């Protein structure tokens, strides 16, 4: 993997490969953790620029966690723990046969509850849970991204699920 790379990633080719490998993960992570209103795409750009500027100092095996730390910090510099309200697509994932007005209304209601419930998750829970549920990441992969143990990821995700279900019932 990255260890196969040379001393550092100052080489343009290697850097581009590294970008292709990690940019999307970083973006998704930032998006689910902090929401879209802080423009995670720009933060991804900034993070990689930082990495490039410091490519001589950052060891290749640390580059990924460096990247995620920088991205996270860039977000934290702006966000003051405001509520994260993620957007969902208007059209439902599955087309049910009975798309009666009642059903659609119910469906809408459910999505709004879900949105509110997601906002109530902690940042750690939300990022891990949504990377798993939406991006289909394995626990192991998330653990690697966030530099935590698989057990911790499992705990976050399961905790998030539990909390979501409770919230939805309550609302």
């Amino acid at each position: 993997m990255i260890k196969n790379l040379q001393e550092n990633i100052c080489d343009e080719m290697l850097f581009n490969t590294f970008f292709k490998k990690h940019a999307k993960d970083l973006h998704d992570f930032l998006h689910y953790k902090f929401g879209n209103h802080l423009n995670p795409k720009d933060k991804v750009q900034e993070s990689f620029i930082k990495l490039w500027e410091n490519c001589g100092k950052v060891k290749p095996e640390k580059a990924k966690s460096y990247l995620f730390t920088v991205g996270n910090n860039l977000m934290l510099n702006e966000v003051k723990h405001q509520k994260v309200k993620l957007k969902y697509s208007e059209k439902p994932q599955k087309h049910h046969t009975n798309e009666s007005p009642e059903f659609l209304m119910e469906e809408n209601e459910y999505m709004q509850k879900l949105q509110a419930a997601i906002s109530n998750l902690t940042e750690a829970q939300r990022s891990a849970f949504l990377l798993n549920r939406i991006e289909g990441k394995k626990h192991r992969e998330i653990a690697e991204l966030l530099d935590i143990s698989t057990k911790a990821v499992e705990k976050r995700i399961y905790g998030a699920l539990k909390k979501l279900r409770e919230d939805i019932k309550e609302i």
Partner: protein
Amino acid sequence: MKREDLIKKWLDNELSPEELKAFKQFEDHEDLVKLANGLKRFKVEDFDTDLELKRLNASLKNKSKNRNNWIKPILRIAAILTICFGSYYYTTTLNTNVTTLASQKETIDLPDASIATINAESSITFNKGKWSEDRKVTLKGEGYFKVAKGSKFKVQTNNGIVTVLGTEFNVKDRNNYFEVTCYEGAVNVLHKSKSVILKPGNSFLVINGEYIDRTDVSLKNPSWIDNESRFASIPLKNILLELERQYNVTITVNNIDEEQLFTGSFTHNDIDVALKAITLPLNLTYVKANSMIILESE
């Protein structure tokens, strides 16, 4: 298998077909699937990796222009160093110049143990940096030198060059008046094409381009060092010029032969005494008003 473990496995998409069957037996299994499907609708808009990479490379290129920034501070340091070395070089190689005004005397320690004393309205120029290679001073006016033993010591004047090894001598270089007096050691005077070696007590005198030969000095050092100007058969004109320099006055003469020779001395401390010392022997009178003095014959 416990319910919680099954759900966790479901979350990680790791259920085996049997486990999936068991999972589907849960009464809330529908809820979980509904939730999972609902969550999928929160998927982030597509992140176009290639497009973002292009964007990144574009901004990095812009930055790389600025990456040459490290040159700027280095240039700054270089500029400062250049100025420091430049001014150091300039000041060390710069000529030192000492100038006296009328009625002023100055003693200058030259870079070695040599000493120069310059009389009123005189100036001396020398170079500290080159002193060890070339002991040379440029003199305008009158100066008395005590030269430490060493390499050649040169005094350059408009009228001639005086070269010595280590000695004491006086050089007087005024308009149309050039006098060198040796007090110790030996002095070589080069005037136009004439080269004369002076022994202690000898002096070399040129007035109006005319060489006057004489050996008269019995003093240890020039009289002006002791605040007295002493003359032996010197035209009155030169004496009055010296008087002007010592007292910073202007002297006008009426009907007096300025070429007549004068032997005598005047002090630098009291202008009335000095004027009397000059006028009495020559039967002259003087009128003094501020810094204007008029001399007349009786």
